[in-house]
Every structure is written in C-alpha cells, then in structure tokens.
C-alpha cells in the first residue's frame, strides 16, 4: 500500500536483471486509487508502464510482464503519466540537439588514429603460460631502455606526426585481474602530451609461446577531447628465454567511441528537464483536484 505517500513522490529504485527500475507513485484522485509508474532503463532506452492498483507487491510480481512493454509515447519519458504536445516534444528535441552540436563545435576534436610500440618485457614467473603480471617493460635496447614508437608509417590519424622511435613510458601491470592501469603508456613530443589509460584488462590468449592481452581505455592528447579506444599487447618467446618480445597497439580509428563532455550532457539535459518540470507541476496540480 502507498498510504501516506505524497503524490509524485519517488518511492524506490530497484535493480532487476541489471536493469534499473524506478517505482514511483502518482496520485489520481484518492489515496486508494494510486497509479504506480514503473519505469526501467536499459541500453539507453527508458520505458514506462502504468498500472492502476494499490498493491506494490503485485506490480513487482508482474515486472517481467511490464519490462518488455515498449514505450508508446513521450508521456512516459520521465516516469510520469502526463501528456505533452508533439510540438513541445519536437521543440525540446531540437533544442537538445542544437545544444549538443554547439558543445561539440565549441569543444576540441576527438582523437582518431593508431599508434604502435615495440620492445621487450619480463614477467613475474618467467613463463608466458603461467605469468600474471609484467615486472618490466623496456625498449629494443634491453632492460635499461624505454619502449619506442614503431616506425614504418604505422602512426595514423592524430598520431601521424609522432616521430618514429619516440621513447614511451609503459606502466607494469597485473593482467590476472581486470583493473584499470593509469596510465598504460605516456610520452611527450614538444609541448604535446600523449597518454592512454586502460580501463579494462583481458587476457585474450595465453600459452607457452604467446601472451595476448586486450582492453579498453581512454586516450588523451593535449588539445583534444578524451576519447575511448582499445589497446592490445602481445609477447612471444619460449624455452626459458630471459625476456620476451613486447608489442603494443592502441587503436582509435574506425570507432572512436567519443565520450560526451559534461557540458554537452548538461546542455542536452536542461531543456528536457525544464519541460519535464513544467509537465510534472501541471500533473500535480491536476491530481490535487478534489473528487466529487
């Protein structure tokens, strides 16, 4: 029962099969005839189901029935059963898009391109098949040197101007656990700093001869927006070799997966929030109308 709950008051938030579910209650005319607003969000979609019952347990029990229900109108966008005009919806949408576009135009570009590195590495067990962490990552010249940017025109996009053989600082890390590595690598060319933070670490292949690691992360270049990308590391060697070859690549081409800036998100959200606020206030005003 929802006695004592004020109209429009947010009541609870649930996590159901990794789907965020917000259970809200809005009033109609009396306390006994409440409208439970069930909204859920998954993969960027937000869907609202309405039901007129006084039993919250019944709503929760029937969640599986409600979840697949597709959105029917903009009225449920924010989880409240109000109606807004199509014109206002379009206006809000256009404003949001303009705001997002403006933010992107004003801000820096996203990073594109590939860059690769080569060198050597040592591992904590000395065996590719059983290793769980890098103990050192160095350059072609041996353990006392730094990894280098690979030449041969492998630098593309926003990395194209990085000179061949640029020295790179690599962080040693544990790949047995999926934990961020910040930074995975970093180097500087003149006044421009380049770096990459690994946000995930996954072993793709591991044997006596090979160790292949892959992950996602965020690339940084001075003057550019932070951009999501993928990274890979590979090593080879066998038979008790003291060190292993080390090759690494960072790819931001094709699918740069730019992360929207906070400014852009705010500019998109504000017009929508404003319309929602107006509609919610109107809805509350209607719900307080006495029943005859």
């Amino acid at each position, binding site marked *: 029962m929802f006695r004592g709950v004020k109209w429009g008051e947010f009541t609870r938030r649930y996590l159901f099969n990794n789907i965020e579910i917000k259970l809200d209650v809005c009033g109609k005319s009396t306390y006994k005839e409440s409208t439970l607003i069930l909204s859920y969000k998954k993969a960027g979609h937000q869907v609202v189901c309405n039901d007129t019952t006084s039993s919250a347990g019944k709503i929760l029990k029937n969640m599986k029935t409600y979840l697949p229900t597709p959105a029917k109108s903009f009225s449920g966008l924010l989880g409240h059963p109000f109606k807004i005009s199509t014109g206002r919806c379009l206006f809000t949408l256009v404003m949001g898009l303009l705001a997002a576009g403006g933010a992107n135009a004003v801000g820096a570009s996203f990073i594109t391109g*590939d860059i*690769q*590195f*080569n*060198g*050597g590495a040592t591992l904590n067990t000395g065996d590719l098949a059983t290793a769980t962490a890098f103990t050192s990552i*160095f*350059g*072609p*010249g*041996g*353990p*006392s*040197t730094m990894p*280098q940017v*690979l*030449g*041969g*025109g*492998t630098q*593309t996009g926003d990395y194209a101007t990085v000179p*061949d*053989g640029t020295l790179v600082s690599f962080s040693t890390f544990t790949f047995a656990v999926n934990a961020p590595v910040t930074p995975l690598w970093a180097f500087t060319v003149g006044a421009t700093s380049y770096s990459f933070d690994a946000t995930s670490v996954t072993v*793709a*292949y591991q044997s006596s*001869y*090979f160790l*292949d690691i*892959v992950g996602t992360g965020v690339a940084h270049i001075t003057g550019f927006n932070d951009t999501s990308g*993928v990274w*890979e*590391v*590979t*090593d*080879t*060697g*066998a*038979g*008790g*070799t*003291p*060190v*292993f*070859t*080390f*090759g*690494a*690549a960072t*790819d931001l*081409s094709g699918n740069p997966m730019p992360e929207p800036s906070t400014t852009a998100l705010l500019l998109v959200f504000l017009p929508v929030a404003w319309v929602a606020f107006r509609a919610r206030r109107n809805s509350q005003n209607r719900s307080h109308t006495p029943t005859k």
Partner: protein
Amino acid sequence: MKTFASVTGRSRLFAAVVAGVTMVFSSTLAQAQPITGSISFTGGADVNGSLATATAYTGFFDTVSIPTPVVLGGSQTGSFASVPTGTQVTFYPFSFLPFAAPQTLWSFTAGGDTYSFTATSLLNVTPLPSYLNLQGTGVISITGLANTTATWSYTDTGMGTGPGFNFGASITATPEPSTASLMAVLALVGGAVRIAAGRRFFARAVVS
C-alpha cells in the same frame, strides 16, 4: 688358473675397446658443437591484410633509421650471447597459409659469423581479431657450429587495417642428445668395466 695368454687376451680386448672409444670421442670433439640458447627480435612487419585475414608476411621493418627488425636486448643466451643488441636482421617474406617448408625465415651476420634459421614446420597459426601468432620448428645455423633443431614463434598485434604491425620473433635451440654425450656415457661405462676386470684379475692372481 688363468694363463698368461688369457690375461693378455683380455687386456688386449680392453685396450681395443678403450682405443675405439677414444677414437670416436676424439672425432666427436673435432666435430662442431650443437647450438644452444635463444634469441629474440623486435620490429614491425607488413602482412597482406588485417591480422585476422592475413595469409602472408610481405615485408619487415623497424624505423626509418633502422630498416629491419633488430636483436632484442637481453634476449641473447647460449650460442647467441655474443650477438650485439640492436643487430639488424634480414627477415624474409613468406606465406603461412599455405606454408611451404623448408622456408628460410631470417639471417644476420655478427662477429664474422653468419646466423640463419630455416623453418621446417608451422605447427600453430592463431589469427585472433587483433593478434597473429605463428609457431613451429626448424633448424638454426651458426658458422662453426652444428646445425641444431629449434622452435620458433612470430607474433603481431593491432586492430588496424595494416599493412604494418608491430612484430616480435623468438627462437630457442633444442639440441638433440649429441654423439659427444653418448660417448661420454660410454667412456664412463668402459671405465667401470675396466676397474671391475682389473680387480678380478688381481684377485685371481693372488689366489693362484
């Protein structure tokens, strides 16, 4: 009672065995020794497509100033220990799908000696979306040393369209039990037999 002739005959037989062993052992020592140890290389490689679709290496490189892959520092052991870090290595393009053996993979010269490797098998090709791993066996050759069996591996990584990817290679010599080792074991056995025979001879001489 042992006669002088029988004792002399046994001694001659033993002397013949020792002489034979010595001859074989000496000839073995005169032969080239097998190769031991491992070495790795780092650089870049061109393939005919992305790593997931490539079927052949079409070229190798490192940087503009160093046009070929180089010997990785810290990787040289055994017979390769004296190879200077950064030695330029000539890698030869080849097809791995299909693979035709024998295939000379690389060669270089250091200290007046020529080092080369010929692959005789390709046992494993693992073309993952962002990796290319090759592994097999072959024969390593170094001037003045006996050709020796070895295992080899190549690896590349990257998700771009290519053709250039970073490249790592490694070989490890896996010498088979040599004739020298066998002869050494045989000599030990021969020595044991000689000692035992000598003890029996002197024991019987005292008794007689």
